């Protein structure tokens, strides 16, 4: 038997209009954690879907535990061989319980009926193995925070005795505490002898868990090796094909007049008495723990949630915003955080998605769509963000995760606004694309547009904003200068639960 638990060579895969994989290889050893890296659309997810039987390869050799896989592999067979995958987009039946999800497709039966007791017991046992004691197997999955749902996915994978576990961007929607918890579990799995393929765009976190790396670019294999033999710059250069010198470019612009003023905004439990100002030529960052109320604040300003009280003053004029349409028309736009749920109509084309909030600009007075203006708008969006796609008429849902996110951003850049709010704009986006988005933020800033960015990635808020507001439990707890503040100081504000907020 070879030393590899998984060996893939000369793998190719073509989708209509895209060659997703072109002669790719991958070598995974027992008990190692491998980072699979590459830009958005490089083909990472596709390669892993082939390994787990979701897609079939066009050609190439594949060995799992020394067993040559001849012909197609389906999900069931892959599972039987011990390969489990946690997909990039969480795949859970939200209405079912934890135990039901874990046993989905392989329910235990006793005397012709579901053996719920036994399934609950085994689910609990499996979770306990991961050190999770306080999760009720009877809880409904949809009620759990994302981090918890992920733990359930991992436990589910273990249930089929996975020897190879693929984790496709598991950290992108987790809070810092949840990520730490997940790393602990990864170490635990490794100790049990499980080999893990770990995909992530958060390069800073890799050193915690990773033994080796495989790097891809544009559907091609680039290089592989021990993680400690690479510097971060080399990894990035291999991913992107060129050097990126400054991961967080921040242009200095003189601060101008006040654009936006929020006074005593209240909306539900997560927005209590929030006030802040936004000036021309600045990027205002919002930091805090997941669930601090930042997203809720932005949604309330944008009119997506109901406001109880508070004033929104734009350029000295008091605005009435009851619904998102009011905000958009008066010059405030929001690129929301959950692309699958709120950002995109995945079944519509990229063109339709970008045009959707801008139809007022595209249509003439009779409501007829002006194709020419639309095409120009799509072209502009595509070029400013280098969205990798077969064409503007392909389905938004068929793009790689990161490119979907770019479409979400692109649709709001197509119109002239006074204030642009980005909620987690770089979630699941590769380094190069992140820099592109930062550059766009800089451009907006220079044009005198107010930019607000909500982000849970500390280096990002610190690196790109000119001023940072910290929230905790629905209240503003601090305001800091990112050039001088320490992460610890921000954390103190971010965890200021009990005391009176300033």
């Amino acid at each position, binding site marked *: 038997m070879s030393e590899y638990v998984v060996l893939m060579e000369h793998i190719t895969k073509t989708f209509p209009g895209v060659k997703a994989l072109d002669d790719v290889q991958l070598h995974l050893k027992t008990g190692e954690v491998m980072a699979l890296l590459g830009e958005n659309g490089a083909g990472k997810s596709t390669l892993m879907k082939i390994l787990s039987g*979701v897609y079939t390869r066009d050609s190439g050799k594949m060995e799992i535990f020394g067993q040559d896989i001849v012909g197609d592999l389906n*999900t*069931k067979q892959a*599972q039987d061989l011990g390969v489990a995958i946690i*997909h990039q987009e969480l*795949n*859970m*039946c*939200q*209405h*079912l319980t934890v135990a*039901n999800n874990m046993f*989905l*497709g*392989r*329910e235990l*039966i006793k005397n*012709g*009926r*579901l053996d*719920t007791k036994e399934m609950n017991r085994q689910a609990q046992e499996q979770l306990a193995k991961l050190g999770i004691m306080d999760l009720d197997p009877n809880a*409904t999955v949809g*009620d759990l925070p994302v981090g918890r749902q992920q733990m359930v996915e991992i436990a589910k994978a273990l249930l089929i005795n996975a020897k190879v576990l693929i984790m496709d961007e598991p950290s992108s929607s987790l809070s810092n505490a949840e990520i730490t918890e997940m790393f602990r579990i990864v170490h635990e799995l490794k100790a049990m002898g499980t080999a893990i393929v770990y995909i992530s765009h958060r390069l800073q976190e890799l050193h915690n868990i990773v033994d080796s790396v495989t790097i891809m670019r544009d559907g091609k294999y680039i290089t592989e090796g021990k993680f400690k033999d690479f510097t971060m710059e080399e990894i990035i250069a291999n991913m992107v094909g060129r050097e990126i010198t400054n991961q967080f470019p921040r242009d200095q612009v003189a601060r101008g007049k006040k654009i936006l003023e929020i006074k005593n905004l209240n909306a*539900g*439990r*997560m927005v209590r008495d929030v006030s802040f100002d936004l000036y021309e030529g600045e990027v205002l960052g919002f930091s805090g723990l997941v*669930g601090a109320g930042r997203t809720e604040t932005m949604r309330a300003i944008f009119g997506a949630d109901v406001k109880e009280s508070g004033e929104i003053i734009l350029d000295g004029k008091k605005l009435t915003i009851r619904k998102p349409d009011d905000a958009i028309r008066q010059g405030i736009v929001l690129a929301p955080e959950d692309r699958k749920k709120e950002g995109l109509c995945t079944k519509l084309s990229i063109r339709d998605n970008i045009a959707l909030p801008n139809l007022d600009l595209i249509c003439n007075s009779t409501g007829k769509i002006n194709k020419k203006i639309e095409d120009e708008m799509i072209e502009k969006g595509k070029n400013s963000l280098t969205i990798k796609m077969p064409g503007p008429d392909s389905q938004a849902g068929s793009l790689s995760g990161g490119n979907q996110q770019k479409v979400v951003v692109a649709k709001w850049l197509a119109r002239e606004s006074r204030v642009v709010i980005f909620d987690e704009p770089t979630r699941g986006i590769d380094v190069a694309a992140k820099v592109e988005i930062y550059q766009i933020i800089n451009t907006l800033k220079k044009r005198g547009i107010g930019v607000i960015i909500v982000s849970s990635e500390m280096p990002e808020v610190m690196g790109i904003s000119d001023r940072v507001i910290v929230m905790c439990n629905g209240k503003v707890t601090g305001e800091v200068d990112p050039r001088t503040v320490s992460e610890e100081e921000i954390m103190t504000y971010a965890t200021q639960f009990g005391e009176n907020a300033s």
Partner: protein
Amino acid sequence: MEKKNSFHKFMSIPGMASVLTAFVGVVILMIIFTFMNPNFISQRNLVPLSRSICPYLLVGIGQGIVCITGNIDLSIGSVLGMSAMISATLICNGVNPILALVITIIACLAVGVVNGVLVGKFKLPPFIGTLGTMTICRGLAEIVNGNYNTGDIGTSGMATAIRDIFYYGKVGFIYYGVIVSLIIWFVFNYIMNYTRTGRHIYAIGSNVDAARLSGVDVFKTTTVAYLISAFCSCIAGFITMAAAGMGSMQAGLSYEMYGVAAAVIGGISTLGGSGLLVGTIAGASVWAILQNGLTLANVPVAIRNIVIGVIVVACVLLDIMRRNGVKLGKKK
């Protein structure tokens, strides 16, 4: 303390609150109608009323299960009509009544398979696929007896037995037809809650991709749901046929919508993945009680329809508002 805890646990079963709301609705309606006409609560009214709930309950079960998979079955009413027409025609033409029922069941189940193949395999939108079978089946119902309603199914021993089992016979205050419907209701409740098939039906309605990736056979599960729906419509057809003693080409018109009403009032979401089948009995009762109570209160037919429509929409609206309210309160 102990008691309070188990009540809490009971209420925390997903969907249970909606089911209870529906049952409370039934009680409130009964109280209102009793005030409007005290005869409503009399044994003379309630016993036949229990019988008239049955067809609504059956189509509610079928439609409810299909709704839980995230689909819809528009062919229910036509299958009901087909069932009544085929069985009556066969019996009138001298076929052994038992055999006639068996043949009818097979014919109805075949429609379920066709629905399953169209929606589950060829991925037709369920609204379109079952709209097709709905039209075809209504045509079949009309054609089996050459575009005429059938004659009386006669009074032979077995024909009488069929009338009794599905409609006229009773022990004490309980009609056999009610017992038959309750058994079916009970069995499918069991299947939905305690078997793998039931679990898979919920799973594909909740997140079809996740279910497929977990190894659930989506085609098979969809087909099973449509088969159940066709079976329930078929039995409802027998009840209608037994009641009239003949097959009517009009049998079952609009019953697919009564099924939606019974399911939705009973707390099943048309979006799939959630709801409990127990509620269908409350949903069906609300429907039947409204018809009966408004008739007793001498409300003209046209007004009756308007009132029923308004009340049904209001019921569902209330349930949605209650659910959203709960959610808002819970949101962190």
